[in-house]
Each structure stands twice: as structure tokens, then as C-alpha cells.
């Protein structure tokens, strides 16, 4: 069954590009050029995923994200212009799953759509193990293995890696990670996050200046990538 994607975008050329691409790659799509229309379509068609442009002509895309998150966990991918880091962070903190900046490559967008849909499917039937590249986490024992061997991690490194493994292929803002791993009240303690990402990279990356798992999204946060399958 084809999956349905709702496009919320007021730039006609971008909208057209998205519609054609999605059709080409076996997705169904519906689209709206404004916030209000989008909410209507969302409620009547229950799409599997949304692509939302942040700058809409009839208001802020963030408000739409907020409204949708009140009623549903449907994956949302945000489209945004460069230089909008604050906007992107705000949208992610409001519950958007991922973002992509214009001009974007179609392959990257498709990869993010697939990752978001896959994550949604995984959440619906939790398995015994989380697999990511050469990393494996046993959900029952909470042990993490790298290349078949148990990783030696400090408690915080372990918590951080666990959080990453449970949220793979998704952009996580600094704030979100700090809040989930260190706890409420630590949202702005960037030095902890930088330090532990650095030490964790030394343990799982082949070359920590060219990371293949923990990718930095400059000014926004991190993305734990599992495309190395």
C-alpha cells in the first residue's frame, strides 16, 4: 500500500518538485499551500507523514506543528531556508522529527522520509534488539555491543549512546539531548554534551574528524546515522 504524504508549502515550484518526486518514488501525496488548509487535510486524510515549510503565507509553520502534536505523533519533516537555525531548533523542540534546508537534494529528502517512516513502524512493534551499523543494543539487558564486543562505557556515555540508538536517523537538538540524558535543568550545559560526544566518538568512530555515526548538525544538534548497514 502506498503511503500518503501531506505537503504544506506555499512556493509553487518547490511544491511541484516535491509532488513529482514523491510520485516517482511510489508515494501518494496531497498538498496545501497554507496552515488552515493543511489542518483540514490532516484531519480528513490522516497522512503517514508531513513535509512542512516553516515560512507559510498565512502564518508560521511552527504553529501548525504545535497543533498537530497536540493530537498526533505523525512524523513531520520541516523545510527551511539556510540561516534559520533558531527557527529549525524551535520547530524540532516543538516536536518535528527532522529538517532539511533549501536548496535540498531529493535523495537526502527521500532518505529522511524513509527514516522517519521506518522509525514510526519500529515504534509500533518494538523488537528485542536495536541494530545500527556495527552497533547493537540489547533492550532487555541494556548492554551495547560494537563489532560483537561489549562496549566499555561510563554511565553517562552509556546513557547518551542509548538515547542516540533509540533515536537514530533523526535530528536531535542540543536541548533535547541534554534534557533527556542529563535531565531537566541541564538544557544549556553544552560543555557536557560536547565533551561526551567527543569521548563517545573516540570509542565508536573509525576517524572522529570524519564521523560516520554521530554527525554534527552545525548550530542545531546531532544526528545519529545508521546508513552504514
Amino acid at each position, binding site marked *: 500500500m502506498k503511503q500518503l504524504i501531506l505537503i504544506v508549502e506555499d512556493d509553487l515550484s518547490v511544491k511541484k518538485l516535491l509532488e513529482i518526486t514523491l510520485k516517482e518514488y511510489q508515494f501518494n501525496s496531497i498538498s496545501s499551500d497554507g496552515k488552515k488548509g493543511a489542518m483540514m487535510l490532516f484531519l480528513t486524510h490522516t497522512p503517514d507523514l508531513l513535509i512542512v515549510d516553516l515560512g507559510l503565507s498565512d502564518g508560521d509553520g511552527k504553529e501548525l506543528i504545535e497543533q498537530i502534536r497536540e493530537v498526533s505523533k505523525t512524523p513531520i519533516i520541516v523545510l527551511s531556508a539556510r*540561516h534559520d*537555525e533558531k527557527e529549525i531548533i524551535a520547530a524540532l523542540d516543538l516536536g518535528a522529527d527532522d529538517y532539511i534546508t533549501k536548496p535540498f537534494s531529493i535523495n537526502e529528502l527521500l532518505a529522511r522520509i524513509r527514516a522517519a517512516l521506518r522509525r514510526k513502524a519500529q515504534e509500533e512493534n518494538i523488537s528485542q534488539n536495536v541494530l545500527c551499523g556495527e552497533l547493537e543494543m540489547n533492550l532487555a539487558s541494556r548492554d551495547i555491543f560494537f563489532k560483537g564486543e561489549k562496549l566499555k562505557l561510563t554511565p*553517562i556515555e552509556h546513557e547518551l549512546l542509548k538515547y542516540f540508538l533509540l533515536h537514530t536517523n533523526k535530528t536531535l537538538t542540543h536541548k533535547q539531548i541534554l534534557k533527556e540524558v542529563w535531565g531537566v535543568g541541564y538544557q544549556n550545559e*553544552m*560543555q*557536557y554534551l*560536547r*565533551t561526551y*560526544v*567527543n*569521548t563517545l*566518538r573516540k570509542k565508536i568512530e573509525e576517524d*572522529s*574528524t*570524519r*564521523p560516520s555515526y554521530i*554527525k*554534527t548538525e*552545525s*548550530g542545531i544538534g546531532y544526528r545519529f546515522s545508521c546508513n552504514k548497514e
Partner: protein
Amino acid sequence: MNQKKKNYIKHSYIFKALAVLAIITLISHLFREHLDIINIGLIHIIPVVIVAIHGNMKATIFITALSVIFFNFLYIPPLYSFSVHNELYLWSFIIFAVVGWIITVQAKNLHTQTKQNELRESLLHIISHDLRTPLSTIHGTINLILANDNMDKKDRKNLLEDINYASLRMKRLITNLLDSARLHSDDIDLEYEWCDFEDILGVVLKDFSQKQNDELLAIEIDDLSLFWGDNILLTQLITNLLDNAFKYSKSDTKIELKIVHFTSLVKIEIFNQSEHIDKDKLKNIFDKFYRLEDTNDISGSGIGLAICKSIVKLHGGEIKAVARDNGISIEVELPITKKATLL
């Protein structure tokens, strides 16, 4: 020698004004009976005006003082003395100064405007050239691929790499232009946060081609220390330094990048091999739009290193270019202003 001559030509208007003052003195002296004191006073403003339109405040003050002294000494009673009996004449002197001041300020504004226009024009010229070079690569290569359906995979991949690299170059240039506008407005606030140079490098390297990454770059970075600075700008700094090194290095030679933490500063050193370079010229390479001669075939606006300098300055650091035996090394020192407290 040359410099002196230039200086002389630049300030020759002062000598003109002095000559005019001499002629005026002569005329006023010869026709003193027919010219009233008012007219004599008015013609003494002429040298002031001549100098003031050049917008040099010091020169204006000098010539105004001189005019006033001549006028006072020769024509204002008591004659041939510097004392003034009627205090109304003091007002005349003040008016001399005011006229000189107004004209100088206006002239100054005009000068800066002309300069800005020149800068803007050269900027437009450079941008159009620099954007067009990668664009023509992209355009030409795409057409080549479109025209050859049976191209073998490896050739196609190479061509696509070229397109990719050209588009990355365009992207960097646009980022640089936007940043340069931002960095040169005076009231820029750095967004300080804890930065990890290794993390920054990871972001930077994504913007270079695979070949540059794997074969041509040797990185040396010491163990983790966090640096208190503007993450986005430091990323831009490293990107520009690397971009510059790749652009001007001899083809297929290694670039060496070193980032070392000392107790009070972080030192970033980037070395690329190149043909012999005139040491005198190295000083200027951080100026906007300055490029070493005989590099005209390399696409680049010279804007990258100027931005590096702004970023380093904003962090209170130093940047310099040093000629080594077989290449150039750019060295950056950033002072450590805050130490991270770790768990």
C-alpha cells in the same frame, strides 16, 4: 622613494593653497587702499576653501591658522602686530574656522562615498566572475553528460564529482559574502558557546570532496579541550583556511592542518606547498580583494582570508601568514578566555 613622491602628489594642494595665499597677500597689499578690510578678509577665505575640499582636517586647521595670522598681522589694526583691538574681528576668525570645518566634513563624506562605490563595483565584478567560473563548470559538465548516453560509469562519476565540487565552491562563496556583510557591520555580537574543534572539523570536512578529504589532508588535533567561542564563525574560519590551502597548493601535494591547545591559547596552523612567494606580499593577503599576483587563473575573490581575519579579531586573536621553504603556513592564535568545568 616612490612612496615619498606619491605623498608629495597627494598633498600638493597644500602648496597650491600656500601659493594662492602669497598672491592674495601681494594683491591685498598693493590695492589695500581700494579694497576695504571686509573684502580683504573675504579673499583670505579662498586658501581655506582650496584646502578644505580635500577633506583633510589637519591641513584645514593649518591653513586656517595661517590665513588668520596673515590677515591679522597685516591688515587688522594695530597693523603688524598680533593684538586685536576691536573684538568684532575675533568673530571673523571664528567664521574662518567654521567655513573650513563645514567644507572639510562635507568633503570627507563625499570621499568615503566614492570609495564605497569603487569597492562595490570591484565586488560586483569579482562576484560575477567567481560565480560564473564554477557555474560554467557545472553547465558544461552537465551538457557533456547529457550528450553522452554511453559514457562509462567511472568517467561519469568523475564528472559528477566535478559538478559537486563546483557547486560546493559556489555555496562557500555565497556564505562568505553573506558573512562578510554581517562581520563588517559594527555591532556584531558573537554567540559564544563551548566549541570542540574536532566536532567543527567534522562539519567542515563534509563540504570538501572525497579526494581532498582522504588523500590530500593530514590532520593533527590534540585531545579534547573545549574552546569558548562562536561555533558558526569558527566553522567558517576553518572552512576558509582549508579552502584557501586547497586552492593555492601545488596540485596533489598534502595540506597539513594542526590544532593544538596551550594553556592560554589555541593555535591553528595550516600549511600548503606552493611556488616561491615574495615575503613582502604576505602581509597583504588578509586584505579584502587582495590576491597574490599570478594567481589569476584560480577562482577566488580574496574575500575568504579577509573573513578569517575578521573572525580571528572578533575572538581577540592573531592571524599571520609565514613563508616556509616550500610553501605558506597560515597561523592563527586564539586566546582562551574561559575554561570549561567538567563533571
